[in-house]
């Protein structure tokens, strides 16, 4: 029985959540530091996971397996492949920044009814840690049921984070703001819960299928994959398709994929910037991750059957999200729609069924997490200064707060995936991967990068450049030390991973190869492959030896 690294990694933030919640009402700052410490400790453990993970090793590593609910064929099974490890690392990485950025989001506001048991600050940070714990488990779970449980359970803390802690100053006034907030929270929860319940039906169906063909029902992913591979696990085409849909719809809502996306703008718009980051950079990744891990692995035939439709929807997401981003008047909603566009890219890469596409999609999940975090958190700092989310209320910030503007620009450039910054690598891989199997789709998606430039630069121009017209802007302070400490590492990371993504991609690639073999797909071969990639020196320019010398 080796050391249960994954369990500990996931449990640590949970413990932190309890501890933070238990801090007395008066000691708000103490709670913050406690939460920060726990998140950092988790980051260390996640780093250990990444370090312990051997790219050339078994498919699932650091595995743990204990009996849990044998009646349901449920086991407590953890284990990470490269994809899971990378995303665990991402999660653990972002949470400290989220906490740091949200440092004052749950502070006491004057006029707030006080109660010895009412501890919003403690609650805020405890909930963040709770989400982290649940997300970590769902990235590590190799038991479908275990995954499902946390996939669903994480909605609850998210729900309280969205509904409970919105921006202080709301464009539509205080109580109207509260109304919209709880609307957003309920919409988020119901939307995802509905998806989850559809998935529940599919999960039960999976159990029935497996118990029919394997004798006793199991949810263990490795077992199911093995049974699938050697033909023990059989299901009728229609069953497989129905089950696939059950799973996919749930993930597509979480991801979110057009037309199931409408909860995201509300949620990200109403939540505070750190929570918005939590939603789009961490929680939503579970959806795309699950497509890669469960949909493709368990229902390969149905996946290929659905691919054309999914690709179509993904393309719609890419363009639709980008166009709506151009049309937004609210900074946070703009970022939300941008994210929808990016999730379109991710899903495109997943279902392109090429190693470039899927590696790209996985890297995209990580890089998009970082870049959106950078952009959104800076946007949050901006909004907290001016107390408005409307783009029109800004302008000329660059003059008074150059550092803020600079970091905002970097975040924006990462969002439009400028080469040299991390997202470029993943986006290009996705596009190449898509193009090599679906050229038309690849070209259409490429149009998305033009629109990306449009909405990012328009946003930057309207908020940061031009003359300072509004008095509120005049006195706007530049980034404080805490804020800089939050943003600088993210920017550095974006640059580093943009230049040197190799370590990450090496961890991811084997996992992708496994997934591709699950769906029995091979990369399309080039028409005129070049034998030796580095035959530089015997290169003669064409036309030279062409003999048409006079």
């Amino acid at each position, binding site marked *: 029985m080796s050391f249960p690294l994954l369990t500990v990694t996931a449990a640590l933030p949970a413990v932190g959540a309890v501890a933070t919640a238990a801090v007395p009402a008066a000691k708000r700052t103490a709670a913050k530091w406690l939460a920060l410490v726990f998140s950092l400790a988790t980051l260390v453990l996640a780093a250990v996971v990444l370090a312990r993970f051997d790219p050339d090793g078994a498919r699932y590593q650091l595995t743990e397996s204990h009996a849990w609910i044998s009646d349901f064929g449920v086991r407590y099974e953890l284990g990470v492949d490269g994809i899971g490890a990378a995303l665990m690392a991402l999660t653990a990485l972002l949470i400290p920044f989220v906490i740091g950025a949200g440092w004052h989001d749950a502070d006491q506001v004057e006029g707030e009814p006080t109660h010895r048991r009412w501890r919003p600050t403690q609650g805020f940070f405890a909930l963040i840690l709770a989400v982290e714990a649940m997300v970590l488990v769902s990235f590590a779970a190799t038991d479908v049921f275990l995954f499902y449980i946390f996939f669903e359970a994480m909605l609850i803390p998210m729900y309280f984070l969205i509904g409970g802690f919105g921006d202080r100053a709301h464009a539509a006034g205080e109580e109207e703001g509260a109304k919209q907030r709880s609307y957003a929270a309920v919409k988020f929860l*119901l939307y995802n819960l509905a998806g989850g319940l559809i998935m529940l039906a599919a999960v039960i169906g999976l159990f029935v299928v497996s118990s029919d063909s394997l004798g006793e029902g199991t949810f263990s992913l490795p077992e199911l994959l093995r049974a699938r591979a050697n033909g023990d696990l059989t299901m009728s085409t229609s069953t497989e398709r129905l089950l696939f849909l059950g799973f996919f719809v749930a993930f597509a809502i979480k991801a979110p994929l057009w*037309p199931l*996306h*409408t*909860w995201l703008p509300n949620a990200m718009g109403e939540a505070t910037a750190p929570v918005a980051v939590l939603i789009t950079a961490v929680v939503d990744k579970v959806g795309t991750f699950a497509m890669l891990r469960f949909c493709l692995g368990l229902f390969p035939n149905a996946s290929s059957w659905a691919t054309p439709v999914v690709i179509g929807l993904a393309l719609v997401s890419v363009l639709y999200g980008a*166009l*709506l981003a*151009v*049309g937004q008047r609210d900074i946070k909603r703009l970022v939300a729609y941008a994210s929808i566009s990016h999730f379109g890219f991710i899903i495109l890469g997943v279902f392109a069924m090429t*190693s*470039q596409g899927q590696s*790209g999609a996985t890297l995209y999940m990580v890089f998009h997490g970082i870049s959106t975090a950078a952009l959104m958190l800076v946007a949050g700092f901006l909004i907290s200064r001016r107390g408005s989310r409307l783009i029109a209320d800004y302008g000329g910030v660059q*003059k008074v707060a150059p550092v803020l503007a600079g970091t905002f620009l970097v975040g924006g*450039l990462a969002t439009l995936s400028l*080469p040299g910054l991390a997202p470029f*690598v993943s986006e*290009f*891989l996705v596009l*190449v991967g898509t*193009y090599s199997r679906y*050229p038309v789709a*690849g*070209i259409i998606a*490429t149009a998305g*990068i*033009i629109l990306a*430039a*449009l909405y990012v*630069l*328009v946003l930057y121009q309207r908020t*940061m*450049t*031009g003359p300072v017209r509004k008095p509120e802007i005049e006195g706007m302070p530049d980034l404080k030390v805490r804020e800089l400490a939050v943003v600088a590492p993210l920017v550095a990371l974006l640059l580093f991973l943009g230049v*040197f*993504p*190799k370590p990450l*991609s*090496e961890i991811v*690639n084997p996992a992708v190869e496994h997934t591709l073999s699950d769906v029995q797909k091979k*990369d*399309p071969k*080039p*028409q*005129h*492959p*070049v034998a*030796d*990639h*580095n*035959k*530089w*020196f015997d*290169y003669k*320019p*064409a*036309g*030279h030896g*062409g003999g048409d*010398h*006079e």
Partner: protein
Amino acid sequence: MIGLLVGVPLLGAAVLLCGGRRLDRTGHWLGTLLAAVSFAIGAALFASMLGEDAESRAMHSKLFSWVPVEGFQADVAFQLDQLSMTFVLLITGVGTLIHLYSVGYMEHDPGRRRFFGYLNLFLAAMLLLVLADNYLLLYVGWEGVGLASYLLIGFWQHKPTAATAAKKAFIVNRVGDAGLAIAIFLMFTTFGTFAFAPVLSSAGDASEGQLTAIGLMLLLAACGKSAQVPLQSWLGDAMEGPTPVSALIHAATMVTAGVYLITRSGAIFNGAPDAQLVVVVVGAVTLLFGAIVGCAKDDIKKALAGSTMSQIGYMILAAGLGPIGYAFAIMHLVTHGFFKAGLFLGAGSVMHGMNDEVDMRRYGGLRKYMPVTFVTFGLGYLAIIGFPGLSGFFSKDQIIEAAFAKGGTEGWILGAVTLLGAAITAYYMTRVMLMTFFGEERWRQAPTPSPAEPDVEPAAETRGEHAEPHPHESPKVMTIPMIVLAFGSVFAGGIFKAGDSFVNWLEPVTAFEHGHSPVSATTVTAATVVSLVIGVGAAWFQYGRKPVPVVAPRGNLLTRAARRDLLQDDFNHVVLVSGGTHLTRSLVYVDHKVVDGAVNGTAATFGGLSGRLRRLQNGFARSYAVSMFGGAAVLIAATLLMRAV
């Protein structure tokens, strides 16, 4: 060693941009120094390269593997051959001079450190572009220079026009970049790689259709970066940037990247004559387009911008001619780099002395106030119009020759176009010259509202001075670079031409064939000179003899159209901008009403249903009893029915 070329200026950029205020007082010198260092490195490499014999001059160095995914192998690796070397020297050389110039030009600007940071960033990106050994890395440099140009055009961000121009430049370029991306996809699916060596060496294996597709996509990229029709509209607005930027990026180096790309990909184009034809056509059209626009502009920088467009048209055209043209394209590129940079610096010097007045109608008779500028500008002028003996003469003459050499009617048409272009060039450059340095001193006349065209916007508020200008010569730090460039403008062409040294130098990379021109070289030269004289004459006739009105005359239709960039922007506005705006607006509506409406609708439906159903619960025990009784009846009936069926 090669890595250092890129690394040094990159380091400079990093230091200057992150360094903070403490570098404000020394930053510009640091930036200039680093630019000089990279030039030195380039020169050293050049020397060592000359040591080798022609065939084995190319160097190659791989730094590390960048994005390895199965078949998709992208390295960070550099390749330095004669073609790259030419660019390296041009970029670092001219770059260093312009750094030096900017020290003086930006003296009073609060953001000077940032400015030099951006300049260094540009150098790094541009060097990466020309040194990359594969298309993906080239793409990085490609967008890198785009970013630098975005930052520098919008350097005076408080000017809305500048911010808009910068945004426009980036987005238009993004369209081209998309083309380059797709070209890379095509190469990957065709050859399984996108490194220069393997792709170009095995280009022959691919079908013509594939090569044509790749070629057209590359051309699209080139159009974006080199401001060729139909993606030329950004260059004029890009003049919102500080003048050194216009000189370095939008005249000497970046905008010529398209020419580099096509020349570099020669092997592909050689296999795709259709693509080549398109290239030639684009070049020819732009050549005239730019020239015509250049004639109508009163803003000195925009006039020069038009000329740049047109000159690059020459280069693209030459590159489109294939092996007979590549070398000349590059040669013209280099000479153009010298004299156009010189002209822009001259323009900058003039503006410097005229409180940043850019409207040539408010100049006049400046030659006695700023002699150095006058002389250097004049030499550049002579070079560009192709005055025999100066560098422009040689390079352009060769291109015209090659154009005829294309053979057939195509050859005749192209030759005619190029000659016409030469004439117009002579016309508008003479116009600039006359309006600026000759005639009476119009700036003394009371400032009247500037002409109605939106694109001629006086940049006078950049430093907020509106006093009557006192024209004066610029400081040494500015004049020296101008002088150096003037030398280049005069002698470069001759040196290159001497013994076809330049062609031989490039030949191992780009290959070279002698074109078989239907008309003899001397005839062509003669024709060139004639057209030159015509152009100059016409200009003198119009602007030299009679005084130039301060307020531009309404002018004929063509003039007015040309002032508005031949309505290109209006077209964009109507078709793209407003169309896009409507699209997004309607989509926002759809998203809210339809997609989201469906969701909320479902919720509302259940709510209404609930409201109706609960009315059944009317509180009367007897009605409850009725429902029970009915229920029982139904239960029985159903059970019996089940048995019956």
